[in-house]
C-alpha cells in the first residue's frame, strides 16, 4: 500500500493536511488576490467584519484590510516556520552527527556548547538576538533556529552513537572510506528518521515564536505578520476584539494543522516499518 493511501486513512492526518493545504494556497495566492501592499490604507478605519463585501473581514485602526493581512501573514508564518525549522534541523543534525561520530574531545566540546544553548530559554535567546542585530526576516529565522537546534542535535547524537557500532560502519572503515564520508554518507542518512519525526513540533514552535517576536514588535517591520496584527489589535481590544481574534484563530489553526499532519506522517511511516 502506498504511503499516501495509508496517510489518507487517518482522519487526523487528513484534517491536518487540509488545514496546511488551505494555508499554502493562501500564501501562494496572496499577491494575486491582494496585489496591493497589505500595509497600505484600504478603507475607513475600524470597519467591522461582514459590513462591506469589498473588505469582508473589516479594517484595522489605520484602515488596512484585515483579510489581505491574513493572507500575506500566512506567507510570513509559513516561510519563517519552515525556514527556521529546516535551519535548526540541519545545524542540529550536523552537530549531533559530528559529536556522536567523532567522540572524545570533539563530542565533549560540541555537547557542552549544546548544553549552553539549551540552558538559555529559546525565546529569550531569539529576543536578545533580534534586539541586537535588528529585525529582518533572515535574522528572525536565524534567531528562532538558534534556540531550537539543540533538540535535533541531541537526538541525532544518540542515534549516531548506536549506528557507529554497526557492522556497516566498520565495513566502510575497512574499505578505507574517509571518516567524514562515513559520518555524512553512511551514518547521517540512517540517523535522520527520528530527527525528522520531531520536525512537526519544531515547525509549530517556530511559528509560535515568530508570532511572539512580532507581537513584541521585533518582527520584520516591512511585512505583515499575524503576531503583529494581534499586537495592533490589542490597543483597541475592547472596542474591536475581532482585530486580535481573527489572526489568533489563524495561528491556532496553523499550529494544529502542522501537528496533526506531522503526527499522521510519523505514524504512517511507523506502521510501514512495523509491517515490513
Amino acid at each position, binding site marked *: 500500500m502506498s504511503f499516501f493511501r495509508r496517510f489518507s486513512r487517518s482522519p487526523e492526518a487528513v484534517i491536518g493536511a487540509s488545514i496546511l493545504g488551505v494555508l499554502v494556497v493562501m500564501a501562494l495566492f496572496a499577491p494575486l488576490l491582494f496585489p496591493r501592499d497589505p500595509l497600505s490604507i484600504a478603507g475607513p478605519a475600524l470597519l467591522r467584519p461582514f459590513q462591506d463585501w469589498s473588505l469582508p473581514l473589516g479594517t484595522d485602526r489605520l484602515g488596512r484590510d484585515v483579510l489581505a493581512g491574513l493572507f500575506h501573514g500566512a506567507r510570513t508564518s509559513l516561510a519563517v516556520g519552515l525556514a527556521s525549522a529546516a535551519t535548526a534541523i540541519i545545524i542540529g543534525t550536523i552537530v549531533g552527527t559530528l559529536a556522536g561520530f567523532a567522540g572524545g574531545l570533539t563530542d565533549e566540546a560540541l555537547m557542552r556548547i549544546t548544553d549552553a544553548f539549551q540552558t538559555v530559554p529559546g525565546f529569550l535567546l531569539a529576543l536578545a538576538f533580534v534586539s541586537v542585530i535588528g529585525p529582518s526576516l533572515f535574522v528572525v529565522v536565524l534567531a528562532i533556529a538558534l534556540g531550537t537546534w539543540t533538540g535535533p542535535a541531541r537526538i541525532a547524537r544518540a542515534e549516531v552513537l548506536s549506528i557507529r557500532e*554497526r*557492522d*556497516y560502519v*566498520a*565495513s*566502510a*572503515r*575497512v*574499505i*578505507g*572510506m*574517509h571518516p567524514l564520508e562515513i559520518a555524512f554518507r*553512511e551514518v547521517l*542518512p*540512517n540517523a535522520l528518521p527520528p530527527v525528522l519525526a520531531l520536525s512537526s513540533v519544531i515547525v509549530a514552535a517556530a511559528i509560535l515564536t515568530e508570532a511572539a517576536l512580532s507581537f513584541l514588535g521585533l518582527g520584520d517591520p516591512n511585512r505583515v505578520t499575524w503576531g503583529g496584527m494581534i499586537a495592533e489589535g490589542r490597543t483597541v481590544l475592547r472596542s474591536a476584539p475581532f482585530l486580535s481574534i481573527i489572526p489568533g484563530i489563524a495561528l491556532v489553526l496553523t499550529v494544529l494543522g502542522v501537528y496533526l499532519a506531522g503526527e499522521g506522517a510519523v505514524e504512517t511511516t511507523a506502521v510501514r516499518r512495523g509491517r515490513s
Partner: protein
Amino acid sequence: MTAPLLVASGLHKRFSRGGKTVVALDNVSFEIGQGETLALVGPSGSGKSTVARTILRLIEPDAGNIHFEGEDFLAQHGARLRAGRAKLQMVFQDPLAAFNPRATVARVLDDPLRIHDLADRAHRPKIIASLLDRVGLSPNLRDRAIHEISGGQRQRVAIARALATKPALMVLDEAVSALDVSVRGQILELLLDLQEAENIAYLFISHDLGVVRSIAHRVAIMDAGRIVETGPAAEVVANPKSAIGKALVAATPKLLRKA
C-alpha cells in the same frame, strides 16, 4: 620459505565495562603466510573477533605489534592507513548488518573502486560486472537493493566488495555461520577457488570445527584471550592437545550413523 604475510606478536587488549576489566587478548602471537588459511577457533568470548578487529585496525591493541607485508601496520595513520587498508579486507558474519540499509549492490561495489581510485568513473560499471561474475552472480543484480537479495547472494556481494581492492589477506569473521547449509558449501568452494586464483590468505574465524577442518591449512585454538594450541588443521582436530580443543571436538555435532 618467503617472509610471512602477516606477523602479529604479543597483542594485548583489555576492555573495561561498568568498572570491570575484561582481558580480551593476552599475549596473542601468530603468523599467516601468503595464500594460507589460518583458522581461529574458540568458544564465544575467547577473543577471536577481537583479534580480527585488531588486525584490521578497527580496535587499537594496548600492546603488541602487527607487521603486514613487512611494514609496521600499527604505525600507519590517516590517509596512509586508509590507502593501506586496500590489501587487508574483511567479510562479516551477518551480511545484512554489514551493508548500509540504503545501499544497492552497485554502490557497495563502487565504493572501494572510487576510494582507492582503481578505475575512473566510466570504467567502473565494467569492473563491477566482472566482480559480480567472479563471485558467481548475475550482473543484472547490480541495481537491486541489498535488502532485496537473498542471504547467500549478499555474502557473495560482500566477498566481491572485499575482492575489489585485490587484497592479500581477507579476514572472514564467522562469514558462513549465518548461511543455510547448502549455501554454506557453495560459498566455501568460492573462497577456495579465489584463494587458488589470487593467492589470497584468509584469517578464518569460526566456532565450527567441521567447517574449519574442511577449509583451513592451519588452526589456532583460543581460550580466554590466549592462543592455547596451533597446528595443521587436520592434526589438531584429530588429536587436540589443549583442554578447550578437546571440548570443542567433543561438542561438535556428529551425524549418528547407527547402522
